[in-house]
């Protein structure tokens, strides 16, 4: 059995509404993510996908329950320790337009560099490898303001890859990408999982592509999470009912 990189036990997620009450998005979630596994995170808008990813990245505390990274309770780890175990990518777009792609990717090395932040030889190699992998080498020296959304998305991925963490959390990495770009993301994910034994959680609205490329899927619906292999029949039934309304409208 492969090592468990990340696990949730009885995790409930949501927000305090400021009057002592909590709005619960997900109740009592149990989940395990193994080395080399790609977990695709599915669910309608507002189902709690981003909240779950933020919690797993240590940016938000669960209302209840425990998140563990490599069997260690996350609340006992320092920010720096977490940053060496988990890389997190959001559709954040508010960049300084003068920053170059190379500089953005280099930020991924911050968990590894010393206090002064100077990049060593291994850092530079990791940055270049990440850029090459994500197909972003060609525009690494261009300022972000001159790049397209898709090009920037590749650089954000490269930044996370350069962080060299066992776990990668990708929040809607395909949102701004065209079809080849979306395939690239999943191809890259498979490569990272198979060749380097990294574990990935990828949230996506592209059901077909996600289910084809994932090993397991976690469907968030109502306040429940259903974690099954991608080929599982129950999962497909649940997905159909969760997305029914949406599909009905599309017809």
């Amino acid at each position, binding site marked *: 059995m492969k090592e468990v990189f990340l696990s949730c036990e009885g995790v409930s997620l949501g927000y305090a509404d400021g009057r002592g009450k909590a709005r619960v998005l997900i109740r009592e979630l149990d989940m395990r993510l193994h080395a080399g596994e790609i977990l695709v995170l599915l669910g309608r808008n507002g189902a709690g996908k981003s909240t779950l990813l*933020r919690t797993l*990245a*240590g*940016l938000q505390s669960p209302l209840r329950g425990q998140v563990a990274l490599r069997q260690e309770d996350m609340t006992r780890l*320092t*920010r*720096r*320790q*977490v*940053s*060496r175990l*988990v*890389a*997190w990518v*959001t559709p*954040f*777009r*508010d*960049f*300084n*337009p*003068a*920053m*170059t792609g*190379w*500089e*953005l990717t*280099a*930020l*991924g090395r*911050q*968990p590894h*560099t010393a*206090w*002064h*932040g*100077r990049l060593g030889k291994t850092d*530079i190699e990791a*940055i*270049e490898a990440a*850029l*090459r992998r994500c*197909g*972003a*080498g*060609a525009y*690494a*020296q261009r*300022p972000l*303001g001159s790049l*397209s*959304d898709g090009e920037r998305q590749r650089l954000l991925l490269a930044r996370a890859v350069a962080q060299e963490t066992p776990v990668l959390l990708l929040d809607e990495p395909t949102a701004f990408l065209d079809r080849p770009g979306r395939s690239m993301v999943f191809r890259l994910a498979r490569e990272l999982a198979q060749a380097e034994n990294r574990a990935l959680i990828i949230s996506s609205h592209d059901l077909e592509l996600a289910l084809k490329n994932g090993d397991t899927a976690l469907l968030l619906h109502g306040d429940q999470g259903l974690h099954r292999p991608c080929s599982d029949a129950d999962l497909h039934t649940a997905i159909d009912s969760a997305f029914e309304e949406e599909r009905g409208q599309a017809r």
Partner: protein
Amino acid sequence: MAHSPQRPPSTWPRLALGGLALAVAFWLDLLSGSAPITAGDALGIALGRLPADADLARILLDFRLPRVLTALAAGMALPVAGALMQALFRNPLASPSELGVSAGASMGVALLLLGVQGGGLGFLFHSVGASWGMAGAASLGAMAVMAVISALAARVRQSATLLIAGLLISQLIAAGIGLLQWASGAESLRAFTFWGLGSLAGVDPTRLRLLLPLTALGLTASMALAKPLDGLALGEEGALSLGIRLKPLRLVLLFVASLLTAVITAFCGPIAFIALMVPHLARGLMRRTSHLIVLPACMLIGGALLLLCDAATQMPGGGGVLPINALTALIGAPVILAVVLRREKPGRSAP
């Protein structure tokens, strides 16, 4: 896909050029002034050979050198304070004067100078203790405004909104200072008015002994913060996910930026535009945003620029010495306008 990434070009040649510009500007400023001191005289005095006219040496060492060193310190400190604030608030238009921090420093000085009536003023202007008092009061004023601005920044999304808030704070403080002036005696009023004009020449060697070390301290501290400053580019949560502890970082940044602003403002009065403009020049000329490069570039470019401005204020003609703020605004305003217009350019994807 197979494109090999190009490595960033070295910035050393450009930084060296900046250093050269700084050295030239330093020398030029040293030779500027009403007394005719030639390059030969200055070189001789620098090498320890006194010229025939001993007065020249006295002018150079007691008046010119403090003025030039003050310009250098202010030129280095203010842009670095601006760069820190721009990174902290993720706002390209943040700077001590635009967000009211300089005004806060002025308020501190005003409370000290106008609050202390009459007789104590001779003491106030010439002792080391008084210099500490001015620097301390200015720092407290600057930090108070910084705290307010940070609280506001946590709620405000639009960069322009924060700017308007800063402007209002400045106006509010100006009104407060006006009230203080109205209520205070003639002598302390004169002292404060003289300070408020903003001058690099008013710093005597006694004050310089406080100004230079504090500036050096602030600049060193800011260089030590280069790495987390870069991380802030990913937004607050992005920075957290890189392992940065945001709360202590914010406090230290506020402290360092306030200190740099306050020390310069306490002794030179409010100097406009340099803090806002130079970080943009530095990023543009270095073609980088990494603070390991931008901060030293700010020091070199800002130092050179303010030295040149200072030299220009000493030009003969007109009635006496030009106010430094007229020159910094003359250069600064167009640069800022260009930055704002470039951000507005259509085609840049705005979320």
